[in-house]
């Protein structure tokens, strides 16, 4: 048996397939890298939930920003709600240095406001329109998703699912540094 090449071929096939399947652990097959990364951020135009202050991509020229899509009904958004607020408090106090923006999708203004209040959000919050134009332009799969856009308006990183402190620590300083680069 041990001299039969067929036996060893079968063993090799079993081993190879096992290795292949094992390589799939720890990968999330849904995490397809966004084609938007390293490209200019798509334009948008929104108004603040409470104050009605307008905001558009053009008005952010030269300012890096963190763009977070959320919804009041989304469970993972609750996990990251306070993280984003604390990132805003730490890095976003000078609006020329970094902006933190949250856009609620498929949501009502009341529910989004209640959500913001519950988690003590003080950064700029807006609501996507009923047709979901902004989320379509950003190619959203679901919420939460967060885009990190540098001073030149280029998307540098996209986080699918709730952001983690590590991601914020790693990405935000890079965005801020992008202001000084020529």
């Amino acid at each position, binding site marked *: 048996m041990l001299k039969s090449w067929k*036996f060893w071929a079968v*063993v090799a096939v*079993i081993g190879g*397939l096992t290795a292949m399947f094992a390589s*799939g652990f720890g*990968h*999330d*097959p849904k995490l397809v*890298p966004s084609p938007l990364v390293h490209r200019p951020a798509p334009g948008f135009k929104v108004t603040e939930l409470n104050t009605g202050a307008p905001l558009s991509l053009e008005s952010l020229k030269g300012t890096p920003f963190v763009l977070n899509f959320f919804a009041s*009904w989304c469970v993972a958004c609750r996990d990251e709600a306070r993280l984003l607020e604390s990132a805003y408090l730490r890095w976003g106090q000078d609006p020329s240095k970094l902006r933190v923006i949250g856009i609620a999708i498929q949501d009502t203004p009341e529910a989004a406001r209640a959500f913001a209040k519950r988690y003590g959000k003080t950064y700029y919050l807006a609501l996507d329109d009923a047709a979901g134009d902004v989320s379509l332009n950003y190619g959203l799969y679901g919420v939460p998703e967060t885009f990190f856009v540098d001073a030149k308006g280029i998307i540098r990183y996209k986080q699918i699912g709730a952001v983690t402190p590590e991601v914020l620590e790693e990405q935000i300083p890079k965005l801020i540094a992008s202001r000084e680069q020529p």
Partner: protein
Amino acid sequence: MLPDLGYVLLTAALAVSLYGVVVPHLGVVRNNWNLVRSAQFATIVNFVLVAGASAVLMHAFLADDFSVRFVWEHSSSDLPLFYKISAFWGGMEGSLLFWDFVLAAFSAVVAYGYQRNNREVIPYVIATLNVVHVFLLSLLVTYSNPLATQSPVPVEGRGLNPLLQHPAMAMHPPMLYLGYIAFSVPFAFAIASLIRGKLDNAWVVSTRRWTLAAWFALTVGLMLGGQWAYEELGWGGYWGWDPVENAALMPWLTGTAFLHSVLLQEKRNMMKVWNMVLIIVTFGLSIMGTFIVRSGVLNSVHAFAQSNVGPAFLVFLAFAMLVAFTLMFKRIRLLESRHTADSLVSRESAFLLNNLLLIGICFTVFLGTVFPLLAEAIGGTKLSIQAPFFNTIVGPLGIGLLFLIGIGTLIAWRHSTWDYLVRNFRVPVILGLLTSGVLFALGIHHPGALIVFGGAVFTGYILGSDFYKAVRARASQMEIGFAEAIVGTVRRNQQRWGGMLIHFGVVFLIVGVSGNWFHQEYNLTLTENRPVTVGSYKLLFKGQRTEKKLNATLHEAVIEVYRDGELVDTLKPARSFYPTQPEPLTEVAIHRTVREDLYLVLASENQGGTVTIRALINPLVMVAWFAFPLFTLGTAIAIFYKPRRLEEPVTEDRLGYI
């Protein structure tokens, strides 16, 4: 309290299955049949224990006992009774318990039913089945425990995924499991025969009915899955080549190949190695199916089924395959048969070709399913394989099978002469060509469809005339009426005529699937009382309505369907809102006729009272479903045939050694 008792029962069952693995071997080594008997008894006890644990979980579901974590995760008190029962297998832990329950039942049947025959192999059949038990039960008592409790006890459960609240979904997973698990019986016989070196055809004949039952359960499971996808997912089709669908299809393909090629072993003593390979691979693919569903290594619509048992399944799969193939290569000399097909033009060749096509399809499906994984492991690129890849390759192979059913029915064993072929195939070939010609003249110019419809008539005629000739011969021979002759003919060879019905079913299935080539799709915005034409139908939107149905609230669009000026149906496609779900689900509405289905999906309710719908015309879907009763009847007839009895003298004294 009760859940703890259930957990104790599972632990006890694990101990009993370990006993069932070791003791039969001791019985053989010590030549002590009483030990083997005790292992058979233990297998039956095992069933009682697992059934007890399952009853505990079922009770928790029915009693809304949310202290059981699994019940809390998959049920809620507002869930209809029917879905409280089916929520049992609505998640990983419960499915595993269900799996072990069915396996325990089958093992008990084997232990009880084969007390007097197959004595040489039965100890290792018992041991093999118990190895699978040990695997499942050790998962169940460790990190996949369906009876784990939690405290504090929540007042309400999280509810069953609304997508799973569909009658077909209640039955689809258990049928697939029944199929997967029933294949472990022939597998266990094959392994036991390899261990004992008893490699005549006994294992094939003894497990023939298990194989048939497994095939039937898998078939029903797949068709119900298709039905569910068609009615619940709302994209308009019943098969999307999703990895999880493919995972269930692959063991069906190898199982079907096995079902055919064992006939060659039974009748002509051929293909012994091949059959061994097929049953091992079928078992392996069943485990792999569960692995793919549960591990989440591939992207799938079945993401709700994911859990952390993937690595355990992978290890077990690799272990089972290595052991099985090592045993096979150890015994390869005993398996190699001197018989080969006598002639290329023979029924043997038709069987071989059938096997090649089925395995070809299986290989294609396998490749398409795992290729994204392979590409990422080796090249680091993300990609996905879509339906066109599968359709391009599987389509022609499937059409080949359609013709082969006819050819294989008519061609003679051993060798067919040219004269014989011409004489017998003349009429069906002419009829088939005629059909295609007439359809062409009627304006159907799709080449694939012309081949399929012609082939269906070719094969259908052969199947029908084969039966008709047999009945007529019997009627004239025995001088009895035609009806009586039909019954007599079927009873004389149930295997053959049951098979014929199933083959008819396959013809219907292939014709039905080919209707896909003519499918049409429309996106429409409907305004109240303004008719819109879709194919040969006129749709009249009558307004929106809100309705309560079980635990959901439906927003319906009421649409009257007219054909030739007459009202034929009122369809209510809807969006349904479930209390536990943030987003609505679509509820499709279908007007079914034999010719085609009109399939409506409510895409959105707009401001101003209009609605946007997707309307699909899916031809011949009903024809495909028609395969279902044929499969059922055919299997029922075939399964009650009596295999040639394998009477062995009861030899208490001699068990022999390994």
